[in-house]
């Protein structure tokens, strides 16, 4: 091919243009544009069914888009698939590896598919499965299986790592363990693209985040930028038992951006906590309503999502 792509470090690790994909009557991805610079951890955050998995699988060359283009590490799936596969580490959502093989045998198998990369034992150490080296995959816990899946993605020494819901279904300790491993990979200067519906995961791991809903990116930026964009820094949540409340007076307080009721609680989005809380207490005292619960937290990506869509990330 004339002007074949040189092995120069790509300026953009992943570029997605006007991507569209429909299944029968559902539009999974609806005109998506993304750009991921090398060396960053980029997160696709959104609720289930937002089109995250379809998007990442198109980027991984496993699904063909209806229209639009994907460029991975400066290469295209249509012309450079074989070269591209050598450079990618992929972890799919809920893959079950062969249960009868041991951890070592599984990694030895995956290692044989790549030209270069660390040995099976080195990757086992990396994901801290040393003690389970000879154990059957079927006997591993959920967290250990997920670490093995990560190891299978790392065994080819990838330039770009795709992780689809890496910690879904894991207990908090197993999640933190996995986060540390992903952070170590990031610290080595590699690029990561991950999907998640956990805002804490996105906030902790990602340099940049695209919030997805109904197949579209509805906001994009660093976690800090996204949170700042909704103009609130804190959320005050309180409840007053079953007593009725004059919400208009609360809405009129200085520094209150938004008031919503949810089940039996009231949520205030405020700019300054140290002024909002005393005002709120004074106002409740004036109305003669007792306070049964009071919680505050700094605004999170969850609040951003609620602000943008009126729904929670994990609407059941």
């Amino acid at each position, binding site marked *: 091919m004339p002007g074949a792509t040189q092995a120069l470090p790509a300026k953009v690790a992943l570029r997605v243009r006007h991507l569209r994909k429909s299944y029968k009557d559902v539009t999974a991805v609806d005109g998506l544009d993304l750009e991921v610079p090398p060396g960053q951890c980029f997160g696709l955050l959104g609720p289930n069914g937002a089109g995250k998995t379809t998007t990442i699988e198109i980027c*991984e*060359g*496993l699904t063909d888009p209806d229209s639009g283009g994907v460029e991975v590490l400066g290469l295209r799936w249509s012309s450079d698939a*074989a070269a591209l*596969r*050598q450079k*990618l580490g*992929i972890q*799919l959502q*809920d*893959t*079950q*590896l*062969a249960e*009868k*093989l041991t951890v070592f*045998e599984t990694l*030895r*198998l*995956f*290692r*044989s*598919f*790549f*030209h270069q990369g660390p040995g099976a034992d080195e990757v086992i150490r990396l994901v801290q499965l040393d003690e389970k080296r000879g154990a059957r995959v079927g006997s591993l816990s959920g967290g250990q299986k997920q670490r093995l899946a990560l190891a*299978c993605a790392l065994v*080819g020494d990838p330039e770009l790592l795709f992780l689809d819901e890496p910690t879904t279904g894991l207990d908090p300790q197993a999640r933190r363990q996995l986060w540390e491993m992903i952070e170590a990979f990031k610290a080595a200067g590699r690029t990561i693209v991950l999907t998640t519906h956990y805002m804490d995961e996105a906030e902790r791991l990602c340099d940049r985040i695209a919030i997805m809903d109904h197949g579209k990116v509805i906001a994009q930026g660093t976690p800090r930028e996204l949170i700042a964009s909704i103009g609130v820094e804190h959320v005050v949540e309180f409840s007053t038992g079953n007593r009725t409340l004059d919400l208009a007076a609360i809405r009129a307080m200085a520094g209150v951006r938004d008031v919503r009721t949810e089940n039996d609680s009231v949520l205030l989005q405020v700019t300054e906590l140290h002024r909002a809380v005393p005002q709120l207490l004074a106002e409740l005292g004036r109305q003669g309503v007792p306070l049964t619960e009071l919680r505050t937290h700094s605004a999170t990506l969850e609040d951003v999502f609620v602000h943008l869509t009126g729904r929670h990330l994990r609407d059941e």
Partner: protein
Amino acid sequence: MSNHPLFQLTLMRMREFLREPEALFWAMIFPIALAAGLGIAFRNRPPEVLKIAAVSPRLAEALRQEKLLDVTQLPPQWAEQFVRTGKVALVAEPAPDGTVIYRYDDTNPEGRQARMLADQAIQRAYGRQDPVGVSDRIMREPGSRYIDFLIPGLIGMGIMGNAVWGLGFAIVDARRKKLLKRIIATPMPRHYYLLSFLLWRLILLIAEVGVPLAFGALVFGVPIRGSTGVLIAVSILGALSFSALGLLVASRVRTIEAVSGLANVIIVPMWIVSGVFFSSQRFPDLVQPLIKALPLTAVIDALRANMLQGAGFAQIAPQAGVLAAWLVVCFGLALRLFRWR
């Protein structure tokens, strides 16, 4: 070489098989147990002695001269009932006019045989002279017994069952668990994955064919008259054809239930019509061309011709052609239809 993906994939096949005790049992132990059971049940016994009865002492005495008859004497009123309930094949009773009456069922081969032997014995006892003397030379030849017929049938059945079920289940299970999708997300060339199944089948074939063959030869003295080269070639061609069939069966379905149903629909009719346990010649002439075109019939006919009649490559060419056709068609279709996710 141990770093080659094909080696590692085939190793995975082997490990998965050896670590599944049930698979090992059905593939290896079961055919031997079946051959042993059927071999014993249908072993050739010395010529059978027929039970008959006589209602007079004179007739009984005359009949006892024939060694192949086991004679009891009965009161006349029981005669009819004994024949009807099958306790004896025939009853001989004297008629008032001095002749002899044979009571028997002429649709029962034992009845007809008893009639012949009984009549001969009675006529001799009453003084008939044979015009010419005769003598017997008994020959019991290996190769014409039921076990000789059965062993090639079981080998064919084993090659088919292990290939269709083995491939079908393994591939559908990997698809269901999204392992197929995970594997094609690596740089591994896709055909390696399918090739690893064929390689593993060929390795397993040594045991699949060798074990029942050795068992038949050592325990029952089943003959292997043809060349071993032909035997190996037929086995390999059969294994490849059935692997292609297994691949086709597994090419699209996503659940174990669907693949086992599909595999059974293909396998069970062939067990019945292709002559595993009894000759396929028993089916009407009209369907014979159809039966001959089935891959299991081709494998079994070729194995029998080779082992029992010593047939060479030329004589089994039609069967080899049938197998090659199945191989090409099934493999081509499977590659077209195959779904990796």
